[in-house]
């Protein structure tokens, strides 16, 4: 019984060691890549845009700095953003023909061969 416990402990310990090693290695690789400029903060922030839905929630608002260009650009961005938000509604016109099949099926309500 004691031997079995020891074996389980050893197995868990070795697994834990492996996981920790991989975690530390991944962290080191990320830090080194960041330091030598292979990846930037922008890259990291851009990663969010490839995840649909998530990007919409976390897209940052323009930071207020008091810079005139920054202020004007943020106002224009607001306008552009609204254009995009309302655009999806245009597709609703496609729903007009949603009943086409049902209308067409009236032509199939009888078969001459039934007579």
């Amino acid at each position, binding site marked *: 019984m004691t031997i079995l416990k020891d074996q389980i402990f050893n197995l868990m310990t070795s697994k834990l060691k492996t996981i920790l090693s991989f975690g530390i290695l991944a962290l080191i690789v990320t830090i080194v890549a960041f330091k030598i400029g292979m990846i930037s903060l922008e890259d990291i922030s851009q990663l969010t845009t490839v995840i649909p839905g998530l990007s919409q929630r976390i897209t940052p608002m323009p930071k207020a700095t008091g810079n*005139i260009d920054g*202020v004007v650009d943020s*106002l224009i961005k607001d306008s552009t953003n*609204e254009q*995009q*938000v309302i655009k999806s509604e245009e597709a609703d*016109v496609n729903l*007009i023909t949603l009943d086409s099949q049902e209308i067409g099926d009236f032509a199939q*309500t009888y078969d001459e061969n039934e007579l």
Partner: protein
Amino acid sequence: MLRLMMKTNYKNLLAKFWTILILLTFIIPAFVLAQSQNKNNSQSKICTAIVKFAERLDQRFVNQEAKLTARRLERVSKIANHQVEVDVKIDANREKWDDNREEQFGKLEEKAQTDAQKQAVAQFKSTMTAAISTRRAAVDVAIQTFRQGLQQAINDRKTATDTTVSTYKSTINLAIDKAKSDCASGVDTKTVRTNLIQSLKTAREQFNTARQNIEKLSESVETLVAARKQAVEKAHDDFKKAAEQARIQLKAAFGQASPSPSVSPTSTPSPTT
């Protein structure tokens, strides 16, 4: 002897003649009656078939109309849900951007040192706030106009469809009534059947032509999309012009060089919600 034989033969012949005559008297009417019964049977068969056909058709029309109503309700629901979704998004966005704008204006005010700069910032705030209101009002009108147009197109389609279906049903019912009447009057069954089939075929062709016209009716909604796009783009462009103008004036007050306007792209990758 010979005379006796001849007399007997004559009597036999006469008896045979009478027998045949009597038999024919029964057979001919029976034959005629049978023929007539056959015809009646055939007549009755096609008449019954027409009645049953009419009943089945009525039921199918009821079912098809129920399906059409269900699909129309689905459309109403989808559009209404989407419109609410868009409205909620717009409101949420505007609120968020309003907050951001207040922050932007606040920082700008902090940077204003002189009275002229403070006045320029106040003017900038006032101008841009008005421009935002104008833009949002124009966008709201564009959305409302689009929605009204969409609703009108749906109503027009419904009216046209109901009229077409109703005409189709009436034409079919008339054809069936005529067939029933012909049947009762003893018109040849083959003629009754052929006439009915031909009338049904004509009704179907007329229905299909009308249906194609209904689909063409829906093509006009593309103008709604174009008008909406144009109105929203105009609102955006007008706003951008006002913003660029305000930028120049504000920069002048702060003694900064007139900018080469920083133009945001018309389409951003993704909207914030």
